[in-house]
């Protein structure tokens, strides 16, 4: 088949999120299909500032067409509009404007889909919240497959989303929770699959030497990802400091670039951005992965931790994380500070049980998230949406 994958930004140096998911799927689809990625020249997901050269390029063997962004995102205007629209006080015009303000505003991309979208057998769109999906998908509804990457945030309840979800011929979901969430707004009976994301088995025992210079004390638990209040990090550090105040000797390692102040405390170790080698070593050596995010559509880090047999401690308020942990029997969850402490006590005081939870997580990844399993589901939807 001739396939187009439409995503807001694309590059080998863009990790995680729906962009990373799109890149992995596009690369694997490329083994059987003629794949073109249609995207923007942006790299920064906040401003959408142009970074990559416009035009055609090849990224790890995949053909990529990049279109320039004509307007950077105005964050204050966007936040003000978000308050209005999410409180259900906006008009339909305000809601459409929200998608424009969210961006990326790349009219060349939309024109390309208008003129050439019909030349593709299927057009896959990633992330319904961005302008390229909202304004691009209605141009090719008869061949569109949407990967919504929807989270339980206020946008899902906005009126303008209903007509968008009624258009695509099929859906690819990341989790059963996302499928339930979107199905409430989407037309029934469309072909769909819950695919998650594929992972290769971890390549043998990780080299732990990169940890030597970091001065980490055993035991430690690790958070991997952007250190950001929106990712639940503020609440995590509050829970953890209350826990540490009770005299428990354990360290919280925050591995990721920070966009918020991190308290200076001997129990919290902020590493900033870490290399893949350090990340692998952390996931091997830690006692547990902590995932405090209240909104997640999948969490690749959780799957990577399980891929290394590491148990997880996740925010119970995030239905996706809680659902994943329960399905996998791969960790515990917490809803408040007291539960956080009790669950962490359990994981630290019972290493055999913690190890068993981690191994069950690994078995879940083997069962659901190996590439042949994931690609077979995607192929099924591509075949059914013809």
């Amino acid at each position, binding site marked *: 088949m001739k396939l187009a994958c439409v995503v807001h930004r694309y590059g080998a140096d863009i990790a995680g999120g729906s962009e990373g998911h799109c890149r992995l799927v596009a690369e694997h689809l490329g083994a059987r299909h003629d794949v073109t990625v249609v995207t923007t020249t942006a790299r920064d997901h906040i401003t959408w500032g142009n970074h990559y050269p416009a035009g055609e390029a090849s990224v790890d063997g995949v053909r990529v067409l990049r279109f320039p962004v004509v307007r950077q995102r105005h964050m204050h205007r966007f936040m003000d509009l978000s308050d209005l629209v999410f*409180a259900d006080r906006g008009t339909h015009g305000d809601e459409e404007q929200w998608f424009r303000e969210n961006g990326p505003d790349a009219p060349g991309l939309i024109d390309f889909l208008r003129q050439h979208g019909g030349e593709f057998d299927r057009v896959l769109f990633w992330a319904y919240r961005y302008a390229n999906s909202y304004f691009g998908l209605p141009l090719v509804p008869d061949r569109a497959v949407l990967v919504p990457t929807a989270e339980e945030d206020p946008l899902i*309840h906005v009126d303008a989303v209903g007509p968008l979800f009624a258009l695509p011929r099929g859906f690819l979901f990341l989790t059963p929770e996302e499928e339930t969430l979107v199905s409430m707004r989407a037309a029934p009976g469309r072909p769909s699959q819950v695919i998650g994301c594929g992972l290769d088995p971890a390549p043998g025992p990780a080299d732990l030497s990169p940890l030597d210079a970091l001065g980490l004390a055993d035991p430690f638990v690790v958070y991997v990802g952007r250190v950001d209040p929106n990712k639940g990090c503020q609440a995590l550090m509050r829970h953890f400091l209350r826990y540490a105040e009770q005299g428990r000797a354990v360290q919280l390692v925050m591995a990721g670039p920070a966009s918020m102040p991190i308290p200076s405390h001997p129990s919290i170790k902020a590493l900033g951005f870490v290399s893949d080698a350090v990340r692998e070593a952390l996931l091997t050596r830690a006692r547990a992965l902590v995932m405090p995010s209240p909104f997640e559509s999948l969490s690749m880090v959780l799957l990577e931790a399980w891929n290394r047999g590491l148990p997880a401690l996740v925010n119970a308020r995030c239905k996706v994380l809680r659902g994943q942990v329960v399905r996998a029997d791969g960790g515990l969850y917490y*809803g408040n500070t*007291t539960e956080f402490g009790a669950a962490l006590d*359990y994981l630290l005081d019972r290493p055999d049980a913690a190890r*068993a*939870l981690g191994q069950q997580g690994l078995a879940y990844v083997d069962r659901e998230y190996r590439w042949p399993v994931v690609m077979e589901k995607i192929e099924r939807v591509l075949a059914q949406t013809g």
Partner: protein
Amino acid sequence: MPEPKLRVDAVMSDIERDVRTRLRRHLIKRGGAAEYHDEELFELVRATLARAVEERNLDATLLPELLDTDVDWRLQTHLSLSSHRPVAGRFILFFKRRVLLPMTRWLFEYSQDNFRRQDHLNRVLFACLEELALENARLRRDLATRLAKP
């Protein structure tokens, strides 16, 4: 023979029970409601409030709709600049947006952050009230049904 599976729901059930017991004792120690000496009653209260906090959609509750009268009670968490002056208004708005707002941005963001917290808390309280009203309505209906039976 494969090892017996460690069930997360069973582990969490034990942890949550332990946390509830600790919470109840903590409240009693701090002089909380005397009714909390009754473990079963405490659990019913906790479960009702937890349903509101954890399961209710905070964006779709009844009380805010009923409050929508002439008086606008909603917290305005976004800033809208306007002027009623037809001619000078454009210049006043320009001054507010380009001079005043950048100079007071820290105060604006501090206030906005607190408005958002208050807005969230309001919505949680609305959800709690709704949960209690629902519980009350269910009990009233059950009671009416029982009384109506011969």
